[in-house]
């Protein structure tokens, strides 16, 4: 019996070993591996039907809201909205899943469905869902409540939400643009500080046209007043006192203030990322240097001491570095330094003149104006190394780049030649694509992009 057990154990062991050997010898099901390094860069086709509305009084808003979202997304250059006339499916209730096959047939990759419901006499509730047509799933669902006269902002907020879900980056649609409205010929031009939505809607003059104003810049940080209402701040250059001086303006209240009554001219102001400091150029005895002002104590500190012209400072988004323009090397070039003025390094080494640097909110790039060979360009370069320069635009006069709050789009001034030449604001995508003119009520220059509104 014992021998039988030993034999049995041996047989079982042999069987087990044989089985393992067979498994080992069997080649694993070979998996095909494919490396894909190239894709297409065409805009994403998206379907945006009119929002549903249960009330005839809100039908127009429901339609207009879809139109604003359509315009926002198309203007970004990253989306193409499919013509509503081609839609196969008519949605009657956004709470039901759409028939994805119907939207795939018209090549939509995403579908936006929305509904407007009146809450009371003054307020509306906007609901929207974003569907991934090929993934057959809902990507986002939001409910927003707003006063009726503010429906455009809700549309921009929905655009931002769609943009973020589909690109992974924060949007920029619920933001505003300050600029200088220009009327009259070049020799006698009236310039007024103006603000409008980023899509050109609702322009408003912030100041009268009696004094020359230039270079408005938003505070990247939006304060709140004692009633918790947001307060947007702008700094700008004005000849109000008879010489160029830097002013601070609260957009919502209209309160304005002269920042430091310096005996000589101050210019090119910009806020620090936390909104607590202001950096600017002060000209003393013919020498322009960069100074920083603490906005609470109003104390100033000189950052550059070179005898050259140092102008146009701009903080990095972390507030640790400053890029500025100086001719200390013989011609205007870009330099960086620490926020305390130490460790000055030359950044640009290219041919031509580099001016008006603006540090990207993403932190990786610096936009600039470059003039070379009789042409002006807006370009970008690596913020750390100054390498990888890319000129995005070229014309008779392109200048003054400003970044969208997400660092994706650049606005700049383009001016045409001649006495009757007109200044306009144009936008371009970071990739150098999607060059567009911004709609403005008159000639426009010196754009500044606000942070996203709260």
């Amino acid at each position, binding site marked *: 019996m014992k021998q039988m057990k030993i034999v*049995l154990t041996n*047989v*079982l062991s*042999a*069987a087990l070993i*044989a*089985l393992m*050997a*067979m498994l080992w*010898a069997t080649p694993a*099901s*070979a*998996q*095909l*591996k*494919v*490396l*894909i*390094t*190239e*894709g*297409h*860069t*065409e805009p*994403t086709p998206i379907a945006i039907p009119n929002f549903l509305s249960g009330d005839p009084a809100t039908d127009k808003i429901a339609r207009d809201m879809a139109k604003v979202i359509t315009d926002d997304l198309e203007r970004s250059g*990253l989306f193409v909205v499919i013509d509503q006339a081609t839609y196969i499916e008519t949605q009657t209730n956004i709470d039901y899943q759409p028939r994805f096959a119907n939207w795939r047939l018209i090549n939509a*990759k995403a579908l936006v469905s929305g509904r407007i419901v009146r809450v009371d006499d003054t307020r509306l509730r906007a609901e929207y869902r974003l569907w*991934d047509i*090929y*993934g*057959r799933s809902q*990507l986002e669902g939001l409910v927003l409540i707003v006063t009726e006269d503010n429906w455009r902002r809700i549309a921009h907020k929905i655009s931002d939400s769609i943009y*973020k*879900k*589909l*690109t*992974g*980056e924060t949007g920029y649609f619920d933001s505003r643009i300050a600029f200088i409205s220009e009327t009259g010929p070049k020799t006698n031009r009236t310039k007024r500080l103006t603000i409008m939505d980023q899509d050109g809607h609702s322009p408003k003059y912030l100041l009268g046209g009696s004094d020359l104003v230039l270079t408005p810049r938003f505070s990247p940080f939006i304060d709140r007043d004692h009633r918790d209402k947001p307060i947007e701040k702008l700094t700008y250059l004005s000849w109000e006192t008879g010489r160029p001086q830097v002013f601070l303006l609260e957009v919502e209240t209209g309160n304005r203030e002269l920042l430091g009554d310096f005996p000589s001219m101050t210019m090119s102001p910009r806020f620090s990322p936390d909104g607590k400091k202001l950096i600017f150029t002060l000209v003393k005895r013919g020498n322009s240097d960069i100074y920083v002002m603490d906005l609470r104590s109003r104390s100033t500190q000189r950052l550059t001491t070179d005898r050259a012209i140092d102008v146009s400072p701009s903080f990095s988004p972390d507030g640790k570095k400053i890029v500025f323009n100086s001719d200390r090397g013989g011609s205007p070039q870009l330099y960086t330094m620490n926020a305390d003025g130490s460790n000055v390094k030359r950044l640009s080494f290219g041919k031509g003149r580099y001016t008006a640097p603006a540090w990207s909110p*993403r932190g*990786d790039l610096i936009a600039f104006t470059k003039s070379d060979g009789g042409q002006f360009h807006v370009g970008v370069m690596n913020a750390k190394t100054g390498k990888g320069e890319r000129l995005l635009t070229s014309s008779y006069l392109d200048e003054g780049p400003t970044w969208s709050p997400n*660092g*994706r789009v650049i606005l700049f001034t383009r001016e045409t030649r001649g006495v009757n030449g007109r200044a306009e604001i144009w936008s371009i*995508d*970071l*990739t150098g694509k999607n060059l567009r003119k911004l709609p403005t009520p008159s000639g426009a220059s010196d754009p500044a992009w606000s942070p996203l509104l709260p």
Partner: protein
Amino acid sequence: MKFGLPISFTIHAAAVFGGLLLWEQGASEFPEVKIINLNLVSVTDKTNIKPTRKKPPKEEPPKEELLADTPKPPPISESPVVPEVITDNNEDVPTPKLPPKFDLDAIANQLGTARENNLEVTPNKPLQNEITAAERADTQQSRAGEGTGNEINSEDYIRQAMQSCWQIDEGMKGYDKLKVRLRVTLDIDGRVTDVDVLNNARIIASGNASWQAAREKAISGVYECEASFSKLPKGAYEDWKSTELTFDPGAMK
């Protein structure tokens, strides 16, 4: 039935060993045969010669000795050959030259000789290596497709299809570092039955919304390409039923 289980194990073990032995025999080496050297005719042999009017080939079959020798290719000129114009004027007609040494009939004869010289075969029985070669060719053909000349292998086909379905955004910060790895399972009709994100843990842990969007774009691209996958060669289904796709926009720099 006290020994039922051990007997069962013993029989199974015997079956496994037997299978392994048969398997080994099945994978026996090819029988030795004579290797036939075929002379390849390069394209230049045909394109670098001057246009001629050939004499009709002689009736007598070519001699075997001629085929055994490697034909000397005509010298390749350094400068491109300018084709001459052939006119109707008899004086301009170049002297007819010998027909080219490449002759399919002669090659067939040589093959026949090889078969005769091989003692292992009879005229009606194919050689073992001929069978294997034919089977291999069938497999290759099924992987390549219908043999239209426009079809490519599964890997290249999937890569090309995905290039038109996968959207990349060059303006996204650090887009070239947002690598996404997917395991895609397809049914025999090319329908996507499962998509598994192989580096999903890293994508989620990074908290990088751009990376997450890149993941969604890769998945969406796979589904968008479903129609293209339906044209994958069904004979090679085992090759592509489970495919690992690596989307790496940084690798193209």
